[in-house]
């Protein structure tokens, strides 16, 4: 009985939570209306104009790279990846691009969106100022098809710094890391190997042998890990100190600017330079 009473009470008088939700949806409705006015297309949902880079060596018409136009619905929350998937599913099933997790974890969909390296899944259409939205493959890498680039060289550079833990594991014990040391490498562990930084780097574009920001950041992650021996650290520094290692960085901050995981790449590279100099001066 009492529960019935309570129910009728709530039905008549909305809880604060419900009121808040209602207000929120109202405000959303207003904003939606504003957007529809902005990008009015006649129908209900706002649309976005995409200009997408196309190239396919196996198709005559696409052997010369060109841009294709797509108009896709873009309600609030639509990401560039969503828009591309819509275009592929509804208009042109040959539109090719890499994607997997759709939540900025797998690192598959780094693209050149409106002149900047970004993850397609992390970039909201609404946050982009320029229309049409230009979607291109990552610069400074060979294009294989449409938005797919050859990542081989990037992976080679990553491999070159031996991106794996090489500490001794004590028998039946956990490899504990101190809190401070964990804090030190925390940001560097966030790398998802998307290649945005490498693509943005002017030096990596010119000097093919340059390790590049992602690889140096990986090296930083392990060189700074106190659980690895001094010998291994020396070995790691040896890789970074080569001519095409840390010294090539010109602190343009392009990599730091585009990193979708906000890793302070330039800062890490700079720290490795100082480590290397300190290393060398010690023998003096």
């Amino acid at each position: 009985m009492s529960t019935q009473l309570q129910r009728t009470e709530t039905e008549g008088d909305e809880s604060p939570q419900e009121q808040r939700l209602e207000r929120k949806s109202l405000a959303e409705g207003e904003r939606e209306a504003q957007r529809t006015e902005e990008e009015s297309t006649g129908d209900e949902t706002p649309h976005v104009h995409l200009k997408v880079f196309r190239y396919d060596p196996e198709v005559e018409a696409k052997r010369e790279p060109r841009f294709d136009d797509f108009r896709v619905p873009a309600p609030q929350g639509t990401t560039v990846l969503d828009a591309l998937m819509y275009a592929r599913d509804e208009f042109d099933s040959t539109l090719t691009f890499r994607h997997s997790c759709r939540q900025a974890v797998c690192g598959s969909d780094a693209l050149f969106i409106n002149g900047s390296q970004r993850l397609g899944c992390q970039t909201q259409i609404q946050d982009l100022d320029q229309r049409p939205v230009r979607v291109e493959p990552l610069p400074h890498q060979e294009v294989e098809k449409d938005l797919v680039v050859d990542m081989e060289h990037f992976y080679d550079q990553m491999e070159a710094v031996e991106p794996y833990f090489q500490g001794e594991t004590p028998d039946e014990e956990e490899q504990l890391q101190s809190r401070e040391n964990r804090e030190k490498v925390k940001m560097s562990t966030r790398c998802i190997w998307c290649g945005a930084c490498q693509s943005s780097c002017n030096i990596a574009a010119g000097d093919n042998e340059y390790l590049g920001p992602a690889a140096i950041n990986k090296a930083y992650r392990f060189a700074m890990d106190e659980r690895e021996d001094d010998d291994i650290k020396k070995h790691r520094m040896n890789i970074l100190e080569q001519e095409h290692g840390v010294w090539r960085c010109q602190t343009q901050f392009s990599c730091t600017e585009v990193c979708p995981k906000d890793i302070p790449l330039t800062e890490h590279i700079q720290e490795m330079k100082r480590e290397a100099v300190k290393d060398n001066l010690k023998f003096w």
Partner: protein
Amino acid sequence: MSQSHNRGLIEDFGRWREFAPGMWAWIFHKFTGWVLIGYLFTHVAVLSTAISGPQLYTTTLRSLESLLLVRVLEVGLLAVATFHIMNGIRLLFIDLGVGLESQDKSFYASLVLTGAIAVASVPTFLSGAF
């Protein structure tokens, strides 16, 4: 891989409107650096007239200084050197790991300082040139 397309470097300078401050700082630093090393060679060449005797040295330099073009170029040289110094200080701090978060602001500061110093020096550099 059968075939792939190399888009080359078109992205770099064709997209200058999208460059971030750090990139501009680098471009200006490099450009001013080229100017300064070029000037160093010419500077030594001109001053080498001293080896051929005091008279030649004085007349050569005086006649160069009497040209309006040289005076204007000197203001340009001062601007170039000042920017290279200001941005150079910025880069030294970045190398020491100081102020990496405000690298864009420090670039703007070096630009503003360079402009101010160049403008302030115009009277000194052009005095007696007309």
